């Protein structure tokens, strides 16, 4: 087996935004705002600046963030969102976890088509208006929400008839037509804050080999918003996730199907999983195993974690070459900074065995599970109603 370090991909000069093949949508947003067509919510200060695909600069808010949660993360792999919140608390940053938030509903839109453009834009703008009311800036947890909101933004900017329809619907709800200055994915915040994470890192990850799976709806759907860095993959691939993993000292290993999707398929994961399972196994997990044999694969989306993790049970039963733990960049960073693997990262919701990984990280999972089991017992005995952030150490 030959391992290809990603540093082998040669560095290219940073792209010149003057040569960008696409418009800068933010300029068009501000023009529409000047014309009284909509409101643009500004990125609050302080913010970090990062480079996107065509060399433009994107603002990533450090705090005052309104957390637009993800259906699959909160529902089925809740250590994902819990870790995002934990990272904010660990750094002492102000954030807001709203109940005045719905799903972007794009999973259903891409799966069943039982929706339409005005409805999708209405749902997006309602959520953005809810964020504006609080003064906190939207931080999107799901890559599909992120990708879809970029699509919606494009449609609203370019189609006056859609703007009129959505403005009418929002008027009936008593809300303005509002869009944020930047559409920000939480993994971009993770990327921007990676040096702050390193300052609080308590475990040495230098013995870990990691494969990265980038989420399609993060960097393929309206591609110009994704973060790129000439020092990561020579600027040829998105730097999000990989740069953070490297900052924590782990080795990122390349594999030949990096650009393939995970096989989620939106409707397939729910009603046609034979496709999902086959694709995840044959095009992702087995290829990673064969070419890089990683300790873990890290990704940054709901569907990707679910698909890559849950799809490994059946092929394992058939003695296929699987068995790679899967988690999000937020969970990985939280573990590096000493987060509890069960109280915070909630790894018991994941399927593929991650205990050997925890041991390699230097984390005593047996002691952690005993602590968490006692938490569960206290809840069942009625001694406590819920676990709290104090229990999670932040």
């Amino acid at each position: 087996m030959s391992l290809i370090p990603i540093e082998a991909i040669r560095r290219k000069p940073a792209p010149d935004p003057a040569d960008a093949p696409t418009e800068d949508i933010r300029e068009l947003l501000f023009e529409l705002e000047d014309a009284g067509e909509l409101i643009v919510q500004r990125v609050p200060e302080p913010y970090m600046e990062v480079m996107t695909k065509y060399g433009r600069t994107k603002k990533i808010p450090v705090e005052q963030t309104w957390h637009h949660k993800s259906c699959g993360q909160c529902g089925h792999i809740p250590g994902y969102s819990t870790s995002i919140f934990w990272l904010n608390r660990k750094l002492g940053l102000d954030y807001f976890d709203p109940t005045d938030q719905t799903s972007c509903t794009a999973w259903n839109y891409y799966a069943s088509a039982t929706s339409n453009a005005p409805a999708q834009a209405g749902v997006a703008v309602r959520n953005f208006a809810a964020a504006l009311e609080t003064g906190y800036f939207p931080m999107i947890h799901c890559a599909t929400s992120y990708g879809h909101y970029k699509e919606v933004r494009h449609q609203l900017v370019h189609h006056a008839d859609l703007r009129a329809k959505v403005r009418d619907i929002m008027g009936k709800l008593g809300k303005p037509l509002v869009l944020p200055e930047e559409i920000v994915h939480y993994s971009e915040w993770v990327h921007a804050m990676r040096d702050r994470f390193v300052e609080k890192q308590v475990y040495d990850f230098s013995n870990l080999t990691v494969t990265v799976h980038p989420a399609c709806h993060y960097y393929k759907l309206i591609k110009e918003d994704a973060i790129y860095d000439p020092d990561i993959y020579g600027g040829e691939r998105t730097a999000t996730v990989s740069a953070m993993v490297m900052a924590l000292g782990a080795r990122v290993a390349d594999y030949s199907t990096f650009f393939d999707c995970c096989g989620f398929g939106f409707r397939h994961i729910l009603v046609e999983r034979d496709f999902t399972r086959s694709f995840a196994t044959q095009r992702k997990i087995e290829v990673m195993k064969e070419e890089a044999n990683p300790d873990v694969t890290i990704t940054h989306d709901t569907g990707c974690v679910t698909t890559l993790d849950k799809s490994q049970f059946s092929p394992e039963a058939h003695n296929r070459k699987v068995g790679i733990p899967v988690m999000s960049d937020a969970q990985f960073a939280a573990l590096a900074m000493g987060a509890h693997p069960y109280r915070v990262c909630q790894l018991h919701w994941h399927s593929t065995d991650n205990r050997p990984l925890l041991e390699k990280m230097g984390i005593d999972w047996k002691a952690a599970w005993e602590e968490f089991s006692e938490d569960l017992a206290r809840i069942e005995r009625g001694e406590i109603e819920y676990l709290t952030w104090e229990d999670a150490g932040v």
Partner: protein
Amino acid sequence: MATATLAPALFTRDPGATLSPNHYTEVPYEEKLRLWEQVKADSRYSDYMYGCYECGICVAACPSARFYDFSPRKIAQAAGREDVELIYEQMNDDVWNCSQCFSCDRCPRQNSPGGLITILREVAVTNGLASSKKALEGYSRIVYKIMTTGTQVSPDMLQPDAFPDWGPDVRTVSENLDTWRRAMPPETHHTTSASWTVSKKTLTELYLIWHYSGVMDMIAQVDEGLHMIIMDVMEESLEEAGYEI
């Protein structure tokens, strides 16, 4: 020049010039044309279709093309040629195979075959095509969940009979669900019937969006029973909030 005379012929609608082997002969051409006109009239269409080089890059990137008899290039070609017969065939036989990952968006002509498929699916649903009803069989509970709770999936959907291929962990989750949901710090996560706690006011606003945008009419076309159930939930909530639909 040969190419100059060939190009218009390729991209001009001609009922006789179809590449469809199926034809769906029981459906009149006029009906197929009506559906195609709906696709073209969608405001998103002009963002998704610019013409096709027929280079096949989209096929090389497409996950569904590896496991199904499916080609995003054929979708773009049929739209570019306005091959009404073939488009109708695709609307019935192909579009539900798409993974909607948008890997095909690497098209050098800036097409989005995945975006075209989104529209083709919507037109199929809006017009109640039998193939769309069949494709969405077993999916009703998901539509119900997202439209009534404002979240797509919920923890209590993790049942062993629904996810047998995910292994015995699903049973462990379902058996410990209530305790496990309490054993996490974010207050919004202490729920089992939705992904997170969504306020009543928020749900009311979501229901209004479904009504005012015409989504309820789409649901009625694809599943009348589901439409009735969702309407019951929504009307109760909207009436309580002082809205009349």
